[in-house]
């Protein structure tokens, strides 16, 4: 074995050193809950395919305080996902160069958030009108 033991700086908690990295990690962490929500929907879909009793069992499970609390957390995380998704969009989307100049990042983020607000509001309004 080599006697040489070079110093290697620990990377533990590297992302807590800078608020920018904290934001980055928070954005990446939303993915876990996006998958969790997809799993909740997938279970509902599978139960739906198994008939009325199975599906109603899933609906009943969603009414437990634990499930509702979980969905309140999910709602906050999804809103953060929407906000962060459009915030980084100026960097992730292909360049648009009208008149040879880049669109302003604020315009791209603002347009995305406006679109999300319109889509979400339309979905909720539609849900309120169905079977009302």
């Amino acid at each position: 074995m080599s006697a040489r033991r070079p110093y290697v700086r620990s990377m533990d908690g590297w992302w807590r050193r800078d608020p920018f990295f904290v934001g980055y990690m928070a954005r990446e962490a939303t993915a876990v809950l996006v998958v969790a929500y997809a799993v909740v929907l997938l279970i509902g879909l599978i139960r739906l395919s198994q008939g009325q009793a199975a599906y109603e069992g899933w609906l009943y499970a969603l009414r437990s305080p634990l499930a509702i609390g979980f969905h309140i957390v999910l709602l906050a995380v999804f809103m953060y996902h929407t906000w962060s998704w459009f915030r980084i969009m100026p960097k992730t989307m292909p360049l648009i160069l009208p008149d040879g100049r880049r669109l302003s990042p604020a315009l791209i983020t603002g347009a995305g958030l406006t679109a999300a607000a319109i889509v979400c509001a339309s979905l909720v309004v539609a849900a309120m009108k169905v079977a009302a």
Partner: protein
Amino acid sequence: MKRSNAPVFWSLFGAGGMLSALTGPALVFITGIAVPMAFLVSPDLMSYAHVHAFAQHWFGKACLFAFVSLFMWHGVHRIFHSLHDIGLHTGAVAKLCCYGGALAGTLLAGYALLSIGF
């Protein structure tokens, strides 16, 4: 030169990210809060008859399939690329678990939707 498969996963990630950014908060609110608490919406909104009819229609099928599968492809891609950031230096096994999970979810969703019929 061997073609990279990265654009496929990146596209699914991007599509799922965009779909969830545009619709996610409303979906979570409707399915997880409003319907279970009968708040703002009719408790009948997600009744078996309604949701079953929605899932039988081609448009409803397409929506449900897109939500479940693209949300999964989006999430697992991000999780896979974040493993390095939390100090897990993984390879093919992690990739298989992440993308394989999304593939399994996609196939299950497709199977459930097909067995509901048209």
